[in-house]
């Protein structure tokens, strides 16, 4: 028998976010005790946010691309910004990276009002990729490091380090147009992080990557994360979100519809459903539990889904499932981020 638990990363993020909740609570109670307003007195802000947005509004003509968006991105977290196409993700990112200004509302970077200088500590990879075709890989990396204010000598060191790391050193002098697409995308990623940003913003980072390169980039992202970088993902690829993001926020039509720690959100959306899997059909005729749906998987397993009025009954359910004989899987049916996303977005419209 095998009981499916959260995968490694989710488990890891769950403990991390628990830590956040705790410190946040502590910070809040300390300030409450001293009768201090929470956000205005930075010394008591025990939870540090890399980016905070308060009531952001941005309109283009008659469309509201951002409609009172408020969110906090904790430092050293991986934060997922989800939404269908045209929901306002890019608009939000452009405001966060100082490319455009909100019509109203406040953005703070590490507790300070967002300022142009802050953009130097950010690394932004837009969804639509692009580099200078006629420029060599190394020149490209140095250019992007330099416009972010990095010293040339340091940038050189860093560029060589990364290129060696990715086995691309022999490509340093090649022009971009001579590179394969996957190779160019690796260069693009390096251009985003070469100046060691504290805050990395990735718009659909895995689109266009083959699985091998996608894994490579994912590992790099996790590595940068453990080294202390905060990461904002904007994506509609849910598998990545599930795997990587500790926090997430769903926006649709410029409005925020859901926001929180991804583990919490999944738990919050739990609909008291459990799944039991067997390698053959079962009829559950004499145990008092009736499956609400049956699903036959390609690998031969049959998955039955049960709904419980009261979660206290789940031990009895497990026992009766065991009693059926041949149980290979038993798990609570937490909705995937994908389901949550689709549900919230369709409920919205």
């Amino acid at each position, binding site marked *: 028998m095998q009981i499916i638990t959260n995968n490694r990363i989710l488990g890891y993020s769950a403990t991390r976010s628990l830590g956040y909740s705790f410190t946040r609570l502590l910070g809040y109670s300390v300030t409450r005790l001293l009768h201090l307003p929470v956000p205005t007195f930075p010394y008591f802000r025990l939870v540090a946010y890399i980016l905070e947005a308060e009531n952001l509004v941005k309109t283009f003509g008659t469309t509201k691309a951002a409609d009172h968006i408020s969110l906090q991105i904790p430092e050293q977290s991986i934060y997922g910004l989800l939404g269908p196409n045209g929901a306002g993700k890019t608009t939000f990112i452009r405001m966060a990276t100082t490319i455009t200004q909100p019509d109203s509302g406040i953005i703070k970077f590490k507790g300070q009002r967002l300022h142009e200088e802050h953009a130097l500590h950010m690394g932004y990879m837009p969804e639509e*990729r*692009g580099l*200078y075709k006629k*420029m060599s890989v190394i020149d490209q990396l140095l*250019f992007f490091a330099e*416009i972010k204010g990095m010293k040339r000598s340091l940038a050189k060191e860093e560029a060589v380090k990364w290129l060696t790391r990715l086995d691309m050193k022999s490509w340093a002098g090649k022009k971009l147009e001579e590179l394969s697409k996957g190779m160019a995308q690796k260069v693009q990623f390096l251009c985003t992080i070469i100046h060691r940003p504290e805050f990395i913003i990735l718009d659909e980072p895995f689109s266009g990557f083959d699985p091998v390169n996608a894994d490579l980039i994912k590992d790099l992202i996790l590595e940068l994360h453990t080294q202390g970088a905060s990461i904002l993902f904007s994506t509609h690829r849910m598998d990545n979100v599930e795997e990587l993001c500790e926090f997430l926020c769903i926006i649709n039509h410029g409005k925020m519809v859901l926001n929180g720690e991804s583990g919490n959100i999944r738990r919050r959306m739990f609909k008291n459903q459990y799944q039991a899997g067997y390698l053959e059909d079962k009829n559950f005729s004499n145990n008092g539990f009736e499956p609400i749906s049956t699903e036959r998987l390609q690998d031969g397993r049959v998955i039955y889904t049960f709904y419980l009025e009261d979660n206290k009954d789940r031990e009895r359910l497990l026992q009766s499932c065991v009693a059926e004989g041949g149980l290979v899987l038993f798990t609570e049916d937490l909705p995937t981020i994908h389901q949550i996303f689709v549900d919230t977005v369709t409920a919205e419209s």
Partner: protein
Amino acid sequence: MKKVWVILKREYLTRVKNKTFIWMTILGPVLIAVFYGAIFLVAARDAGDKTPKNILYSDESGFFRGRLDTIMNFHFTPAMVNESENLKKVSSGEFNAYMIIEDHDLSRIDSVKWVSRKTMSILQQEKVSSWLSDKVYMSRLQGLGIRQGVIDSLRPKTSISTIEIDESGLMKNSSSGLKSGVGMAAAFIIYLFIFLYGSMVMRSAIEEKTSRIVEVIVSSVKPFQMMLGKILGVALVGLTQFATWVLLSMILIISITTIFGSNVLSQAQTQNLPVGGPMKQQIPMENDMFMAFYNLPHLEIVLIFLVFFLLGFLLYSSMFAAIGAAVSQETDVQQFMFPISLPLIFGFVIAQTSVFQDPNGPMATIFSLIPFTSPIVMVVRSPFGVPPIELMLSISLLLLTFIIFVWMTGRIYRVGILMYGKKPTWKQLGKWIFMKN
């Protein structure tokens, strides 16, 4: 400012390192020399075409009967009565041309038809027409009983050699033709560079926009800084190319003068004699183009050229940059390019008419002050000498316009580079200027 520098450096280095650029810079002067050489060669050959031409002619007036025989390399033969027979002879190649003199009273010279397989060159046309009218003119005068000697004395050949004298009495050979030539050449270089390098700025903006690099850059560099760095970088590329051309040409000229001797130069220097002594010695009579060239106000011309070259380029390329940022693909630029190029072309028209008529006249003065035409008109005027006050005013106006325009185009650029899709209208561009961030 540091970011402008980083952008500038990139724009400059990627272009200067480009192989096409290196070849053009080295071969440019050679190619131009070869090109002009070829033109002169063809023109000279055309003018000196001495191969005999057989011309058939019919003369309805009867005036030329017996008078037309051989002029230079044209051999005239009276035509048959049968018109189609005559034409056939030309079309078959037996005769080079068939000339029909239609007019009876010969009062008009344009009533001559010339049928040939190849269109007559302007030089030939001039030659034949002047010869025919000369014949008529002479015979009329002779018909009035005037002797040939009197006729010749009535038509003196005059040529003016122009000499400038300044307030200190110093006299110099000068040539207004040469001055116009130098001015036009300088203006043409400016025109060429504005378009060549202006469109380079535009293409660069389009490239960054279509490849979406711009989004990464504007997250750390202000669009205005980006545009400024781009314009200045490309301007520097233009200056580099121009300086290299000048340097290479100078090396060419110096090596030629050392090969063919330098006495021409020393002659020119001694020609500038002060007033005093017998008149005959004072006035430099030798009408030497070289000396006229030597006597041009070189320093002023070069300085005016550089200032207007740079400012003119900056003004126009800021507009080019804004267009590049506003459109999403290169095919959309035409609609915007035309209105921008108009003032420059108009500047040339003014230069060829008003400036040549009177370099310091009101038209020339006005258009050398207007910022959009001044980079052309003022430079054409420069060899003739321009009052310093006008020069200062013109430069200040150009500078001021550049500052205003770079602000406006910077605003368009800022909005444009993040806008995709349909190409904008002029009205939208105007709106973008006043749009908030």
